[in-house]
Every structure is written in structure tokens, then in C-alpha cells.
């Protein structure tokens, strides 16, 4: 997008330069015309750049790029997977807490409560298996985790919340719809 903006912008500036030089040549000294040209160029540049930047901000929604920010050796976990792991650790802690030297981090309880609020599925392993099918279409691990955590009801919801997938909607529409219908079978009955 930015490349297109740049290419579109530059010829416009050059043509305005040519116009200014043509006008300048007819009028007074060449120095004065050069100054006019420079000012025009700067204002054109400023105007062009501002428009470009504003256009960029309006057009580009927030893109999820988990893989770019992920630390080395880390993998993403869905909330339901994390809930299982943290609950397992807490069950063990009931036994271990008799030993006063063993203590859990402060964030552990808050993390566990957060996952318990978002338990939408009966079986995290099955959810993972269903969503793994999207990887063959280039959907990343981070995007898969967000889809699972969001608990979407329609394909429109998935593409609205994950603009990174919107560009490939034509290819992903059917697979996403299939995955959502499979996930609906795995949803916890409330």
C-alpha cells in the first residue's frame, strides 16, 4: 500500500516542479524562480506526505503479528489449553502447599480466573485439531489462538476481528465456515 502511495506521489511532484520552472523562466531572475520552486516542492512534499500518512492510518486496521513478536522457543496456547494446564498445576499445589517453601507467582491466580471465565469448549485437544486444518491455508498459530479465544459465531466475525485474514477471504471463507461448524459441536452447553 505504502509503495503504491509513494509511486503515485513522486511523479506529481516532478510535474509541479516542471510547471514552476516554466513559469519561473518567463518571469524575473533564475534565483528567484528556484526559490519559488523549492518552496513549492517542500509544501507539495509536506502536503503529499501528510495525505499519504493520514490515508495510511485510516485504511490500515490493527494487524495481528504474533509471530514477529514471539520470543524464541515460545508457542501460543489457546485460553482453553492454558486453563487445563493451570488447573492441573493448582490441583498439584493443593498437595504441595503443605510445604511452606513452595509458593506460586502472584499472577497465577489471576491468570487461572481469566481462563475459567473463557471456557467455551468441552475438549481443548479437539479444538486444536479442528483449527489446525486452517494452517494449510497459511493461517498462523497466533491467529488460530485468537479465533479459538474469541468464540466466533459467524465467518464475518472472524474476518472483522482478524484483518490479517481479510486479504485472503476468498480463499479462506469456506474453510473458516467449515471450522466454525465443527467448533459449534465442541461448544460447552451452558
Amino acid at each position, binding site marked *: 500500500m505504502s509503495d503504491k502511495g509513494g509511486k503515485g506521489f513522486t511523479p506529481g511532484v516532478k510535474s509541479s516542479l516542471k510547471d514552476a520552472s516554466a513559469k519561473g523562466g518567463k518571469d524575473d531572475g533564475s534565483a528567484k524562480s528556484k526559490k519559488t520552486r523549492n518552496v513549492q516542492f517542500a509544501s507539495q512534499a509536506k502536503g503529499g506526505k501528510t495525505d499519504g500518512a493520514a490515508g495510511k492510518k485510516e485504511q490500515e*486496521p*490493527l*494487524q*495481528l*503479528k*504474533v509471530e514477529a*513478536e*514471539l*520470543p524464541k*522457543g*515460545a*508457542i*501460543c*496456547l*489457546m*485460553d482453553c*489449553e*492454558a486453563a487445563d*494446564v*493451570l488447573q492441573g*498445576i493448582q490441583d498439584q499445589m493443593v498437595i504441595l502447599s503443605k*510445604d511452606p*517453601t*513452595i*509458593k*506460586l*507467582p*502472584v*499472577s*497465577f491466580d*489471576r*491468570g487461572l480466573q*481469566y*481462563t475459567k*471465565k*473463557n471456557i467455551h469448549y468441552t475438549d481443548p485437544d479437539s479444538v486444536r485439531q479442528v483449527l489446525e486444518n486452517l494452517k494449510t491455508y497459511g493461517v498462523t498459530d*497466533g491467529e488460530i*489462538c*485468537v479465533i479459538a*479465544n*474469541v468464540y466466533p459465531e459467524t465467518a464475518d*466475525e472472524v474476518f*472483522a*476481528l482478524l*484483518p*490479517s485474514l481479510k486479504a485472503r477471504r476468498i480463499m479462506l471463507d469456506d474453510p473458516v465456515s467449515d471450522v466454525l461448524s465443527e467448533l459449534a459441536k465442541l461448544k460447552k452447553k451452558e
Partner: protein
Amino acid sequence: MFLKTELQGNVVIPAESLDAKGLMLQKAIFVRLLDDFAKRKATKDLGYLLALKTVEKIGEGKVRQHTGDVLFPVTFSAISFKLFRGEILEGVVHKVLKQGVMLRCGPIENVYLSSSKMPDFNYVPGENPVFYNNVSKIEKGVTLRVIVIGAKWLEAEREFQALVGLHADYLGPVP
């Protein structure tokens, strides 16, 4: 988002904790690792450290000269929580201000939602201030689905501050 990371670290065991029985040594290493976790609270790369999942491998110990302590290289996996730009989260409102609301998302206390990122919501002052639009209300205790705009690591406090928004479809109060 929750992360599972394999990490390598060194655990120093004082000489008095060492025992002829192998199990007690493993327990001492585990306890030290947990202690370190609890103290560190969070890191810039991993986010909030929640739990130690498994100790995968304990390497050969090296005796440190002068102190008599033994240093063990340890490989372990840990669960942490970190916010990513563009991620969709649910947070609970714990403070309502004129300029916006403060949310709690999991272990992160300071998640800020500015009023400028709450299109169509208007501030209504009072004893229990709220934000209203024609359909719903945002007040203390309400759960909101938000998008993460950015997160900042505060080295001194060892915690994150995050900025979120409601400025897209399918975001807002969750019933």
C-alpha cells in the same frame, strides 16, 4: 495470549540442601525455580510469568569455588501471559474516568481504554459514572471485548501497561 516457552536457566543449590537421595535434589531445584519465578513476576519478552509447567532436564552440577554451592543448568517449560498488538481480549472494567476506563485483563491491572477509542459512547458523571450509547452501558464490573493497540513494559515496576480500543465491529460489552 498465553505462551508456553522452553527456557534454560541456572539454579544454585546451597551445600546444605544437597542430599544423597536424588529426589530431594530435584525438589530443591524445583523449589528454587518456583521462588525465582515468584520474585521475577514478569519479563519484557515473556510477559507475566504464571507457572512452571515441567522441569525437562537437569544438567551436571558444577561446584562453585569459595562458597561450596552447586550450580545446575536446568531446562524447563513455563506458562506466561503477554499482550500482542492486534489481539482480541476480554477485560473487566474496574475504574470509570471521564477520559476513559481502566480494565483488568488476566494478570494485567492497567489496561486503558480511552474515550476517543469508544465511538458512540458518552460519559455520564455521577456517584457511579458510566459510559452510555443507545444500546449498552459501560460501568464498573462490565466485561468488554477489546482490541489491543499497544503495550508498554515498565522496567521499574516490572509490569505492563496496555492501551486498547473498541473502534471496530464485534467489539464492546459482552453479555
